[in-house]
């Protein structure tokens, strides 16, 4: 699998978001939804709307109340819903995630906030052995309508313990659903679906995209879990990209256009359930595929997507499916090193050229 990469982002989130912004949301016509808000605002809107709709929705995590989370994404929620529904916790990820599981079994719809996705390492027992299995082990008697919010993504200069994209782990466990939104529009619609879902759902937000702007309708809408979105239609090659990689894929598609390669960008939006049909159909049409995911490709999301395509579109593929993911190293702190670990528009362009012999 390809592991070289150049600069994905600058160290400065704001500017970074601006830069990504320009190629954002090609999927939804800016005419249809004139209103533009950021990815972070979309997440907050989704949670606020669901909390208004349903008094059983509660939110807890570290510094989620007055601080509005470490990323300042949920500022204002505690003012509207009060400290009984928006609750600061001790630094006890396992404890309060498990507490969320128990609360979900007994009538609530908790949203548990895990500041950095890297800390999922601390809650895998509560997620994989408890939340994921309770419905099945009880023969369908107990339900766990829980949402766990976590982040993914590197290039923030946060080093190895604050830069991982671990969504492959929960995706591996039956009983869990996993959401990886890539635009403000998806972030809102998928979060609402996650909150209304009767199963444990882990939502991964790219911490570098919180300031990414995009059109989001004011009215209530929900995006069903398990439905991929073709973010850009094309004929020559399919780029299946998730979360942070979707904007990179779209940027690359624009560059590829210049050299006569018409790329289709497919965003699964959820890694489980996985919309295999849309992905495979696209590749059957284009006969070439790149899969992009910011997690490690090894035993990861890239591996699953590549395996699904290689099996499902076997008789249509003109070239091997190529995986682009984080370089298989702990994420280094030093900017030139860290930037080398993440796929970029340039990596995609080079890979696509090779696959299309252009």
């Amino acid at each position, binding site marked *: 699998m390809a592991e070289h990469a150049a600069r994905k982002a600058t160290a400065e989130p704001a500017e970074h978001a601006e830069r990504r912004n320009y190629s954002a949301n090609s999927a939804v016509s800016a005419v249809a939804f004139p209103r533009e808000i950021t990815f972070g605002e979309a997440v907050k809107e989704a949670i606020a709307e669901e909390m208004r709709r349903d008094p059983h929705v*509660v939110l807890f995590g570290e510094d989620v109340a007055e601080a509005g989370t470490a990323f300042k994404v949920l500022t204002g929620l505690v003012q509207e819903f009060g400290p*009984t529904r928006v609750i600061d*916790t*001790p630094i*006890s990820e*396992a*404890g*309060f*995630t*498990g*507490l*969320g*599981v*128990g*609360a*979900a*079994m*007994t*009538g*609530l719809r*908790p949203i548990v906030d895990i500041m950095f996705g890297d800390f999922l390492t601390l809650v895998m*027992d*509560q997620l994989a*052995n*408890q939340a994921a299995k*309770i*419905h*099945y*082990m*009880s*023969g*369908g*008697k*107990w*339900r*766990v*309508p829980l949402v766990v919010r976590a982040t993914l993504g590197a290039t923030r200069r946060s080093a190895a313990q604050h830069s991982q994209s671990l969504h492959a782990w929960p995706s591996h466990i*039956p*009983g869990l*659903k996993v959401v990886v939104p890539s635009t403000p529009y998806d972030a809102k619609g998928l979060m609402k679906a996650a909150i209304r879902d*009767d*199963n444990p759902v882990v939502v991964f937000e790219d911490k570098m995209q919180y300031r990414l702007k995009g059109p989001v309708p004011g009215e209530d809408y929900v995006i069903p879990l398990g439905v991929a979105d073709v973010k850009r239609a094309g004929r020559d090659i399919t780029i299946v990209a998730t979360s942070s990689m979707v904007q990179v894929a779209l940027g690359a598609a624009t560059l590829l256009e210049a050299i006569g390669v018409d790329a289709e960008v497919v965003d699964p939006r959820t890694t489980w359930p996985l919309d295999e049909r849309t992905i495979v159909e696209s590749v059957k049409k284009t006969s070439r595929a790149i899969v992009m995911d910011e997690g490690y490709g090894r035993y990861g999301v890239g591996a699953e997507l590549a395996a699904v395509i290689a099996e499902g579109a076997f008789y249509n593929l003109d070239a091997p499916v190529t995986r682009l993911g984080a370089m298989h190293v702990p994420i280094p702190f030093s900017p030139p090193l860290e930037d080398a670990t993440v796929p970029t528009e340039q990596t995609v362009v080079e890979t696509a050229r090779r696959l299309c012999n252009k």
Partner: protein
Amino acid sequence: MSDRLVQIYRQMVAIRLFEERVNDLYTRALMPGLAHLYIGEEAVAVGVCSALRRDDYITSTHRGHGHCLAKGAAPDLMFAELLGKKAGYCKGKGGSMHIADPETGNLGANAIVGGSAALATGAAFSSKYLGQDRVVVCFFGEGALGQGVLYESMNLAQLWKLPVIYLCENNLYNEYTHFAETTAGEIAARPAAFGIESASVDGQDVRAVHDTIAPLVARARRGDGPAFVVAATYRFRGHHVGDVSRDYYRTKQEEQRWMSDRDPIAILAAHLVASGVADRASLDGIHAELTHQMDEAMQWAIDAPYPSVEEVTEDVYA
């Protein structure tokens, strides 16, 4: 009161008879896998649950049959689950270590040691948030004191004044290792460190268990927060049904002492007779009646059908 004591006696005997049959099912190779018997510890589950309402919650453990029965589970459906039958509490999907039953407030047995500490605390969170006055009892063995999530949970429960009672069954062993080798300091000091009300009780004396837990349950129901109880008890049998030669970790004499002097059923029987609440004959009658019921329940489960293979993919998602 005396009626209640007889009822409590019946429950303890029922658990004992149930577990003896579980052991038979294993030795007769009729039960898949293993099971952890509650024999010797009956007074804890029964004493605790006698102080609970049907709509109160419990979480249980790998050694959970006694907890489930004491909270009101039906023996026939329990046997069916242990045998992996469709009629079981979990359609055969859970087995011995995962009996769950919303009807009786049983949030489920848990095969992860300490795995229910946070879940129980979450159920208590719901009870308080929803303005219910339900109390949650989290049963666990002293081995669970080794799991960090227990301390994270106690801290949360005390901070938020949640109606949960942590019920530590100290039967002296974590599997094949004496708890003294795994537990530093005093057990009761651990909840105390979080400001949690704690109590210790003779887990072989069902009346003492009831009298210790009842006020703590009432206190939690009032909204005055969590509590922690250590019940001193002993498992008369092996860690699981296959643990038959135990000499390398505990002596026959120790087992004998507990079985002859500290049998919770014998202790209550003596009290009932001495206090004139019941005579030996009536107690024997209870045994005979329950024996008959348990045999029928077990046979019904043995004859019950397995789930059909298609069901394997059901209940993964709600």
